[in-house]
């Protein structure tokens, strides 16, 4: 039996799915253009969140948020120049291990500076309002609205602008794009900035909605990778659909009630992992389809 009404489930999935989708979209874009599974991608969200919280004492929240996102992207660019550019030359696996190391370092630096206790932007108690039959706080409504607009804008950018065409050309075949006169370095830099910006928005909205801890981003690692992999690494639309799909599945499973014994909320991340493991077992090369098949 399901204990919650459909509107509640959908609202829950929208809030959670938007956070995951912003991160998964950037992750999959970076993978598409650079063949780089960046574990440290999640740290854009943490850095953005903490930068915003620090600046919220000085500026009003929207301004602090924008500066926070810029700080995250700038730091990301610096790390790319210093670390990832060299590791990516060595290959896919050294780059992935290196990004894990960067992720560990960023979390440690944040914990060193801010401690491990949750931090948030001081705000007044929020009044729950009813939106389309579901109870949501204003910051949850804001999270969904900002995220969906960012997703749609990025999607439109990729679909209809010359820049988007270049990104898709590099993703399809970097070598062919290069000989056709597409400046690969500029495309890669742009993708890196867009992905970092989207992730930072996700982290900032999450911090505004609840609070930030040093592991804010890292805790989302598996749901985000699940969504990106199930959607087919490199496929932007697939990642977004899979993000909301995973979130909806989580909401439904947690709402299940077997004669009074429900699944504990602490199992929430497990649903995404199980989903990912099953998807990988049955589609070993991801949903993109098998490139090489052993007969």
């Amino acid at each position, binding site marked *: 039996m399901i204990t919650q009404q459909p509107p509640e489930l959908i609202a829950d999935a929208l809030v959670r799915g938007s956070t995951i989708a912003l991160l998964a979209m950037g992750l999959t874009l970076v993978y598409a253009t650079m063949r780089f*599974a960046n574990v440290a991608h999640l740290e854009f969200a943490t850095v953005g969140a903490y930068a915003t919280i620090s600046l919220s004492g000085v500026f009003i929240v929207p301004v602090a948020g924008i500066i926070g996102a810029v700080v995250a992207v700038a730091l990301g660019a610096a790390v790319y120049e210093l*670390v990832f550019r*060299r*590791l990516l030359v*060595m290959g*896919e*696996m*050294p780059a*992935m*291990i*290196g990004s*894990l*190391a*960067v992720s*560990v*370092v960023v*979390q*440690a*630096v944040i*914990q*060193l500076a801010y*401690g*491990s206790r949750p931090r948030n932007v001081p705000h007044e108690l929020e009044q729950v309002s009813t939106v389309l039959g579901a109870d949501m706080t204003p910051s949850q409504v804001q999270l969904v609205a900002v995220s969906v607009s960012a997703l749609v804008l990025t999607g439109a950018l990729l679909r209809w602008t010359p820049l988007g065409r270049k990104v898709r050309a590099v993703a399809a075949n970097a070598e062919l794009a290069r000989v056709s006169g597409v400046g690969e370095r500029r495309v890669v830099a742009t993708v890196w900035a867009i992905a970092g910006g989207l992730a930072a928005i996700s982290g900032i909205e999450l911090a505004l909605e609840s609070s930030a801890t*040093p592991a804010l981003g890292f805790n989302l*690692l*598996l749901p985000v*990778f*699940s969504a990106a*992999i199930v959607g087919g*690494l490199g496929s932007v639309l697939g990642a977004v659909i899979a993000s909301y799909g995973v979130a909806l599945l989580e909401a439904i499973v947690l709402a299940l009630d077997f004669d009074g014994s429900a699944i*504990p909320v*602490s*199992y929430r*991340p*497990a649903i995404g*992992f*199980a989903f*990912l*493991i099953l998807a*990988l*077992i049955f589609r*070993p*090369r*991801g949903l993109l389809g098998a490139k*090489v098949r*052993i007969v």
Partner: protein
Amino acid sequence: MFDYFAWIAILVCCYAMIAISLTIQSGGGGMINLGQVAFVGIGGYSVAIFSRAGLGVWAGLLAGAVIAAGAGYLLGRLGRTLGGVYWAITTLAVAELLRLIISNTDTVTGGMQGLGDVAPLWGELHGTANTLARLAMALAFLAAVVLAGVHLDRSQLGRSLRIIRENEPLAAALGIDVVSAKSRVLALSGAAAALAGGFHASDISFVGPDQLLPFQTFLALTMVVIGGLGRITGAVVGAVIVEAIYDGTRFFRDFLDLASDQIAALRILLVGVIMLGFLLLRPKGIIVDHPRRVRV
């Protein structure tokens, strides 16, 4: 002071076993496993559960090794042809899933509190004799794992794994059963990691979900990268260096005016920076795994 050094030496032995178990798959098989700590957990928990049920620590150690080997073999079979990135994420997901289940089944695993009162492997001893016995036992376990690792390195399976690492299609074309080789090395690696986990649980008489955090795998991975991917001696050297830095810096709290979570962050930061430094400046590690001539 002696107890402090003995404590670090025992930890070095445990981590060296885990690092060896990791290096035989990532260095040997070319697979980066981000969830190796799951096998360590299987070993630790089975020793704790067996010991508390009165079935004996050694039986628990054996059971842990067998279960972990089976789990490793199964993982290798299920993972089949997963590419590097997919494989790494899957192993991480499996390990996190195990940690979640352990944290939430209070009746069997003690949940977040973990399990205490695990019997020691060597009966009841006291004082310096006890410390020496534990140290000797740790060295014996490490020696057994090192011997197994060296033997694997020279065996036909070891040679097959090196070819797979360098060029998987070539290995398949040479008639090497890639899936079987990977599954078998995962089974061995799982058993070795479970031994390390089981020994550690019995040594400190406690096992808990915090010992299964992904950072533990990262620590072992750092040892492997620093020592030199694929080399048994490299894994041991890496374990000594990283462990000396990670647990040898606990005394920082004596003269740094920081909260305990900040000290912990500082020590983690050190390990992360060293890992990055090696990846950028000396990616092949201290002991480089050169191609070797083998007699067949």
